[in-house]
């Protein structure tokens, strides 16, 4: 019995001590991160695009093999990237390379963003593609992306969706046949975020328009494009099953299965369609708001370097980005493995899927409208627009005009 007691006491002490040691160790790691050179031997990458997680890890391995510099890729689920990044930056375990989605986010993280303007490899950046903060270049675009109406060419003739009337009658025809004519999905950006771009992007000066909107100089309800947008949304609600029951996966899956004729998606969906080995042809068409005949093309996210790290690690991070964009291996990863449409002039696009091809062609010819949502107030889409869109889709008696009014209120709430 005595032995037992001693044994238990010993065990408890051991457990306590090892626990304390663990705490102490954790603290040390966090503390050394800013100053000493302990971690500067390698770099860490934390980024938002889940689709390329595995491929990026492979690229990191290839880089380590070539140069001996260890690269750690920290996993993400995509959705909570912003929160995770904030936590990591605050507790001192921030990555050396991170992704920054747009100018709004860049402004918040300003003190963490290293000025990349002077670096050699950015000279190959396609014009107006870099993420600028004042006069500093703080982000290198991942790739060019575009969205629009992805349609099944066997079911839809693009001439039938070229304006409001034909679009609506096409939806009505599909509805009568029991086919989902136009699929959105319940996630914030796929429900309202992307599609809400059109009335903004069709303004002559979208960014200026948004500034005026924030200042109260213009209202959405007095702007033609928005009223038409409301009508489109009404027609979509009236003739298709509610998107709130659909996820991104089922939206794309139903399209691949031929149960949906058109979905509102971007070229990133092509990867999933290829996985499904769909047996029909698909293509991307512009959303015909006010006769719009251009795809919405922009940059989904940007690589940025953490300025809070010591210079050695910053240099290592820049070298990695340089390798990714300038070496043969790196470029192969971008084009073939990531499936990106490069935003660098010195990288040739590879064999592209039909959707990316459409985006690339639009981008090269300049026949595009910009991504207005990159200039929205931070997080307005998940925070404010999504609840509005949800109530629009659950309340059949809410009109398109009321939708626009509520979007106006949502904007005011977010921009204050």
């Amino acid at each position, binding site marked *: 019995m005595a032995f037992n007691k001693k044994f238990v006491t010993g065990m408890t002490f051991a457990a306590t001590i090892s626990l304390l040691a663990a705490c102490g160790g954790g603290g040390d790691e966090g503390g050394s991160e800013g100053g000493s050179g302990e971690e500067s031997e390698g770099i860490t990458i934390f980024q938002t695009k889940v689709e390329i997680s595995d491929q990026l890890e492979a690229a990191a391995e290839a880089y380590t093999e070539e140069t001996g510099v260890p690269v750690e890729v920290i996993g993400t689920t995509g959705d909570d990237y*912003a929160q995770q990044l904030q936590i990591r930056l*605050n507790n001192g375990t921030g990555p050396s390379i991170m992704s920054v989605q747009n100018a709004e986010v860049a402004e918040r993280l300003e003190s963490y963003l290293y000025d990349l303007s002077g670096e050699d490899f950015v000279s190959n950046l396609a014009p107006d593609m870099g993420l600028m903060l004042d006069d500093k270049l703080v982000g290198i675009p991942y790739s060019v992306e575009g969205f629009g109406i992805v349609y099944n060419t066997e079911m839809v003739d693009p001439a039938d969706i070229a304006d409001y009337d034909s679009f609506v009658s096409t939806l009505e025809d599909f509805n009568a046949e029991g086919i989902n004519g136009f699929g959105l999905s319940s996630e914030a950006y796929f429900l309202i975020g992307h599609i809400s771009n059109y009335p903004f992007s069709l303004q002559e000066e979208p960014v200026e328009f948004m500034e005026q909107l924030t200042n109260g100089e213009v209202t959405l309800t007095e702007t033609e494009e928005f009223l038409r947008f409301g009508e489109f949304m009404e027609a979509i609600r009236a003739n298709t099953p509610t998107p709130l029951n659909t996820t991104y996966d089922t939206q794309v899956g139903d399209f691949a299965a031929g149960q949906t004729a058109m979905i509102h998606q971007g070229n990133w969906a092509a990867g999933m369609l290829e996985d499904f080995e769909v047996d029909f042809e698909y293509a991307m068409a512009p959303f015909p708001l006010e006769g719009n005949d251009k795809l919405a093309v922009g940059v989904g996210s940007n690589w940025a370097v953490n300025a809070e790290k010591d210079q050695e690690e910053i240099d290592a991070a820049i070298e990695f980005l340089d390798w990714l964009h300038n070496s043969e291996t790196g470029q192969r990863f971008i084009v073939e493995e990531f499936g990106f449409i490069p935003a660098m002039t010195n990288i040739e696009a590879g064999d592209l899927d039909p959707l990316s091809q459409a985006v690339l062609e639009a981008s090269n010819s300049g026949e595009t409208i910009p991504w207005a949502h990159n200039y929205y107030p931070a*997080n307005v889409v998940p925070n404010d627009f999504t609840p509005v869109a949800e109530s629009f889709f659950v309340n059949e008696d809410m009109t398109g005009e009321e939708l626009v009014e509520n979007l106006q209120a949502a904007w005011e709430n*977010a921009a204050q």
Partner: protein
Amino acid sequence: MANRKKVGWYLIFTVPLLLIFTLIVLVPFVIGIYYAFFQWDGIGANPMVFNGLDNFVRLMEDERFLRSAWLTVLFTVLSVITVNAAGLAFALLVTSKLKLANLARTMLFMPYLIGGLILGYIWQFVFLDVFTLIGDVTGLESIFFNWLNNEDFALFALVFVFTWQMAGYVMIVYIAGIQGIPGEVIEAARIDGASGWQRFLRITVPLLMPAFTISLFLTLSYGFKIYDVNLSLTGGGPANATELFAMNIYNEIFGYGNYGYGQAKAIVFFVIIAAITLTQVYITKKKEVEM
């Protein structure tokens, strides 16, 4: 000697726990109170501006917060009633002379073992596919439709799923209470001619008061704090119709980037829960009877 030994044991068992509790509960709590008086976006390098009690004044006028507070109260009241009614009913059932009592006990406890996140996704599927299917087949489409897409019913869906999860847990508490009631008291009452209902009301319920104290406390505080099922089942939607307290705070801090304001909400949230649960414990404690 013996006394010193006791102190040693006491320390061994309490110090590690106390240390952990201080580190991960007390310290963040105090820091949280401190942050509540600042306007800050939660990013270490950005400035913190002291703004006194502004955050607390502001939340009195924050309609979304007040709505969320009301929804949380509604949710908690409804679920405290349903969870405890169901839990007590189950407990009475499985302590009766039912043949399948043991099996039933296990089955009823099972939902509690499933994590709230997974459970939410499972029920999302049930509401979406099974409910609409039942509606189609039986023609009762006014009851069986996807509750999650209805601003009024989504909250009931949340109550329903929370009850399904928690009823088994409080059932265990009630079973322990029921088994602690001496058989002779019940028997004496029976001999005196008390009916089944009278025995339940006059003997079982008063003697179960300690179990009520615990169960009500647990369900009240769990109900107020619910986040996981809320997140996975409805995500606060549709149109924020099910955005409860915890989610509102999370969205304020991480969605809108108002760290200080979110902290102020969290402090108010803490005070409310503490006040309500302590009152409840005080009241039910007084009703407990000594054998």
